[in-house]
């Protein structure tokens, strides 16, 4: 078994990765393009709707809650197909890249909403009350008290969601978006070099995921709220 593993490693043809570096790099760029757009917009949605949920704003709260429950309890692939095949029926014709980032944004936004809601709700009440005592309006109290503190509390879980959004970009190959997994799978099916392509993919994804996870651990330590609060 060990000999077999050694034999496999020895027969690795790294050249197949180098030879295809052009398409692979393009695929990586596509992954990052859709991923970054999705993450940034998901953060925006999460902040806004998280605040709505935490403050229980009437009507908006129920709408946000429905949005979150719908997205969390249905598979992301179904959401992607629903948008890709459904929107044109409504007369909305979007190019593939748009559907790509839109679908992962909607998915990520729901999870970010819950992340930020938990963060905002974890801010001790007395801090907000202190703000009111100082004459803050509810909005200013939110901006100056809840948001900075709650945002810090929520940071680790939101980065986790961002990691998931990036990983989910791989599913976009099923609507023809030429991201990294699509390119690697293509090369693998033409050259039959499954191991090498998988290694390349693993390195690419794990590098990003592990870096971001390390960032979370670092932030958890650095941004830890002092006990006195």
């Amino acid at each position, binding site marked *: 078994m060990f000999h077999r593993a050694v034999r496999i490693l020895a027969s690795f043809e790294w050249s197949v990765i180098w030879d295809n570096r052009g398409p692979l790099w393009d695929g990586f760029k596509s992954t990052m393009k859709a991923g970054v757009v999705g993450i940034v917009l998901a953060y925006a949605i999460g902040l806004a709707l998280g605040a709505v949920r935490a403050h229980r704003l009437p009507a908006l709260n129920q709408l946000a809650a429905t949005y979150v*429950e719908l997205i969390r309890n*249905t598979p992301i692939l179904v959401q992607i197909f*629903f948008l890709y095949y459904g929107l044109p029926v409504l007369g909305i014709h979007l190019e593939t890249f748009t559907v790509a980032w839109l679908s992962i944004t909607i998915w990520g936004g729901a999870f970010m909403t819950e992340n930020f809601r938990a963060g905002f709700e974890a801010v001790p009440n007395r801090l907000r009350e202190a703000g009111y005592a100082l004459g803050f309006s509810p909005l200013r109290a939110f901006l100056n008290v809840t948001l900075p503190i709650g945002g810090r509390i929520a940071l680790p879980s939101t980065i986790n969601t961002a990691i998931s959004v990036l990983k989910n970009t791989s599913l976009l190959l099923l609507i023809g978006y030429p991201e990294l997994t699509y390119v690697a799978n293509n090369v693998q099916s033409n050259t039959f070099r499954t191991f090498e392509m998988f290694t390349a993919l693993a390195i690419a994804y*794990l590098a990003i995921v592990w870096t971001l996870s390390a960032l979370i651990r670092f932030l958890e330590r650095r941004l830890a709220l002092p006990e006195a609060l």
Partner: protein
Amino acid sequence: MIPDWFRPIAEYMLREGLPETLRLAAIALIASVLVGVLLGTLMTLRFGPLRWLIRLYVEVWRGLPILVTILFIYWLPGYDIGPWHVQLNAYMSAALALSLWGSAQVAEATRGAVQSIPKEQHEAAAALGFGWTSRQAFVILPQALRRLLPPMVGLLVNIIQNTTIAFAIGVNEFLQAGTRQFENVTSGLTGQVAPSYAPFAIFGFVALVFFLICFPLTRLAAYLEKRLT
């Protein structure tokens, strides 16, 4: 109430696709829990190399997108073990990929749960004369497993939703069944007719069924979480 064109499609989806989805989820859940709890407990041992190995397993299978794992397992060339040519079919590749991911999640959760048991429990059990193994079996693990219950229900929801990724290698699960009929209807060459809003009906139906399964489970997980604390 169900339109004529939709009825046979819905029946096909529920008859052919849904059982596959549920069976795949069940296998993946059982394998994930068994392997995951084992690995998670082993991770709490003070044996460095073993901990490192299991940590590697966890970080790799959690860090990779499940789609990448599934494609790799499916497209790996078969291996000749003795007289047999071993190669996983689509269904088993999907089950294995989901189990690798699921067991990594469970392992991490188990480690967290075991390590969250206060030291006093270990010390009290030792003082009562429990050896290491019986301490684990009768005192630590039961408490850890109880803390694991909410996240396990959450894991089940995720596994059920992630079975749709098996779509990519042609497993005839629920989403694939719907998509296949959608393709038939779009081409217009199978004698089936459908109105233009067919994508909403078909993919909406897929989403609805998943929602009906996952929403109660999500509520259950939240309820169990509350009961614990």
